């Protein structure tokens, strides 16, 4: 029996076991919406702006190991979605974005709501397709999900002209797929793995540095085994938090621009560095010249060959799926007769503990004004470290990363690569839908949250009991901090004048609002908010306007050149 293109699209989603599609209707996708309406296996979540749709699907994907799916119309639907697509691309999030396109006969004629979707999205997708024949939809959708989820994951856009969704074809969904031009490497090279083991055994001052690849690769258990087996210190990047338990003694905290003193010092002074699923980016190693000044042997495990020796020359590259490579490393270690140099390790740990005793994250706990760090500490306590925490971008993001101790992967959901303000709230919607009943907190600031504030309406429609933790310092805090440090205290346009009354705003969307102004009220407010299990509670914490994020590696400086509190 022949089906329409729109029916085929929906059947493909069903075949892929898609639970939720996040989207917004419009002219070019009306046939697809009509088919979604006629079935109830794939649920649609109506957002209030296409950026929100993509972020929500992104949050869904990050907090599960599934592919996020969003659906938007042509033209402005696509351009609104681009920020979300670029966000997913920078953080390698598996995602399929279905976009409507004007009918094939109108393409290129500047038709109403036409844009060159494939052209606009090309630099920020893993791959994209324009489907011009209804017979190609099923195979293209299969490829899209396969490409999005395998290798180094990423977003894939499938652009479908309106007439193609109304044309008819037989539906056959391929059970599996092979592409001669796309074969991600899985197993690490055995020779390289042996070399890595030898280097690790000889290390006097070893360090393990891991990133988002461990989370995405589902290798947290393997990482924990490896780190404990070796007895080495471990640090995570912003994207990698939760891959190794933050409460473990071997964890040195996050590294990088706002990383801990001990993590950055150990990173700078180690003699053997094992990097796993991380990419040595500018926010992590600071000035590369300064980083190279100390000689060290670098072992780099990554599924993407182009991540290796991109910013930092690597001595022992291992291309492969992180989980498979870690299992191979563990197997070799179990069988090895040699042991790591325990004597040297003891000395190294003594040095690290000295760095750790610097207590780089200390802040004024006696303050009469609410300190943002205090709010995050209390959030951690009240949720017993079990919450899913999404964030926007800025100071609040760094404090959440520093002070919420993530023991499990996929609990910390933030836009690390692109640094997208407005990500937190819609991402939290996707997380909450993926984990009904779980505590989901969106840590945000008064500037970021206003970039996608309209999604409070979506939260009401789908009864999503997210807890918004708004650290309100009336400034774009990170911008203000840079202006204080590097621009002579001239706070150019970083002051948020004319803020809304967030309590009334939350109430007008049908939610509960709270304003918290005293440190003593922080914990009770959080307790009350999380006790309201079925409600979205918007907590507006009025925090210290002058607080800065420390430690800080200023731009262009080396990792060990931190500004400390």
């Amino acid at each position: 029996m022949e089906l329409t293109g729109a029916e085929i699209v929906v059947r493909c989603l069903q075949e892929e076991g898609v639970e939720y599609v996040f989207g917004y209707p419009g002219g070019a996708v009306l046939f697809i919406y009509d088919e979604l309406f006629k079935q109830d296996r794939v649920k649609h979540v109506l957002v209030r702006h296409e950026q929100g749709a993509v972020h929500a699907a992104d949050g869904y994907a990050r907090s599960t190991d599934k592919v996020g799916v969003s659906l938007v119309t042509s033209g402005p639907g696509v351009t609104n979605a681009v920020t979300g697509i670029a966000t997913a691309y920078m953080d390698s999030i598996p995602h399929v974005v279905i976009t409507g396109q004007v009918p094939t006969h109108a393409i290129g004629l500047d038709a109403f709501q036409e844009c060159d979707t494939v052209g606009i999205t090309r630099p920020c997708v893993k791959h994209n397709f324009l489907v011009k024949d209804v017979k190609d939809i099923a195979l293209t959708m299969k490829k899209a999900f396969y490409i999005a989820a395998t290798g180094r994951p990423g977003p894939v856009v499938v652009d479908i002209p309106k007439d193609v969704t109304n044309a008819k074809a037989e539906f056959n969904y391929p059970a599996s797929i092979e592409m001669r031009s796309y074969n991600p490497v899985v197993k690490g090279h055995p020779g390289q793995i042996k070399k890595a083991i030898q280097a690790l055994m000889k290390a006097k001052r070893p360090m393990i540095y891991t990133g988002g690849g461990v989370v995405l690769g589902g290798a947290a258990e393997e990482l924990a085994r490896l780190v404990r087996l070796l007895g080495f210190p471990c640090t995570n990047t912003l994207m990698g938090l939760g891959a190794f338990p933050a409460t473990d003694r071997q964890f040195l905290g996050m590294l990088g621009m706002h990383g801990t003193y001990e993590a950055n010092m150990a990173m700078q002074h180690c003699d053997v560095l094992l990097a796993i699923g991380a990419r040595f980016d500018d926010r992590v190693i600071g000035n590369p010249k300064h980083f190279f000044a100390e000689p060290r042997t670098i072992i780099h495990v990554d599924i993407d060959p182009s991540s290796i020796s991109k910013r930092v020359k690597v001595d022992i590259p291992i291309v492969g799926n992180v989980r498979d490579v870690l299992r191979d490393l563990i197997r070799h270690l179990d069988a090895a007769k040699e042991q790591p140099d325990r004597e040297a390790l003891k000395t190294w740990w003594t040095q690290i503990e000295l760095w750790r005793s610097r207590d780089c994250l200390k802040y004024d706990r006696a303050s009469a004004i609410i300190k943002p760090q205090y709010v995050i500490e209390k959030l951690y306590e009240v949720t017993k470290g079990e919450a899913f925490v999404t964030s926007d971008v800025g100071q609040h993001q760094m404090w959440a990363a520093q002070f919420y101790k993530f023991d499990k992967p996929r609990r910390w959901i933030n836009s690390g690569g692109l640094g997208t303000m407005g990500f937190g709230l819609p991402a939290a919607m996707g997380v909450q839908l993926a984990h009904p009943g779980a505590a989901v907190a969106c840590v945000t600031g008064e500037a970021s949250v206003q970039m996608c504030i309209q999604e409070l309406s979506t939260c009401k429609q789908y009864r999503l009991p997210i807890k918004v933790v708004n650290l309100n310092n009336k400034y774009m805090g990170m911008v203000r901090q840079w202006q204080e440090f590097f621009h002579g205290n001239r706070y150019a346009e970083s002051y948020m004048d004319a803020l809304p009354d967030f309590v009334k705003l939350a109430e007008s969307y049908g939610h509960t609002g709270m304003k918290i102004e005293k440190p003593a009220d922080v914990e009770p407010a959080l307790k009350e908010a999380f006790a309201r299990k079925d409600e979205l509670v918007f907590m507006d914490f009025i925090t210290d306007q002058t607080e800065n994020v420390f430690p800080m590696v200023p731009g262009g400086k080396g990792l060990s050149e931190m500004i400390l509190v």
Partner: protein
Amino acid sequence: MRHIISVLLENEAGALSRVAGLFSARGYNIESLTVAPTEDSTLSRMTVVTVGSDEVIEQITKQLNKLIDVVKVIDLSDGDHIERELMLVKVRAVGKDREEMKRMADIFRGRIIDVTDKDYTIELTGTGSKLDAFLKALDRGAILETVRTGASGIGRGERVLRV
């Protein structure tokens, strides 16, 4: 250093723009780029001439390999290879120049492929430097128009790029 990179890619709409977009997005140089379908019409073969340090070239080949439409990539400059470029030059051919142009074309083993009473069109094939030398040898004022294809390259002997 100058490198000549051969790419075998799916003959799909947009495949060329993915490669061109990659070079501009990452700030890599393109000296020339040629592309056409191969004997297997589902595949295109591209030759890119680029300049960069070893690190940059390594990244270029890795990034090219990462493109979903790309099937295989080799850096021809890693070994023995042949490269050729085609140029068409329209020159003024009147008076004493008419004989001179014919002679120059013969010396460089070019062929005159179009003739009018005022001009010749000369076809010339060779390495880029040979084509440069030919243009240099001509009186600049006599050159009316030139068009060059950019280099195509192939490995010598048993060095073969195929699926």
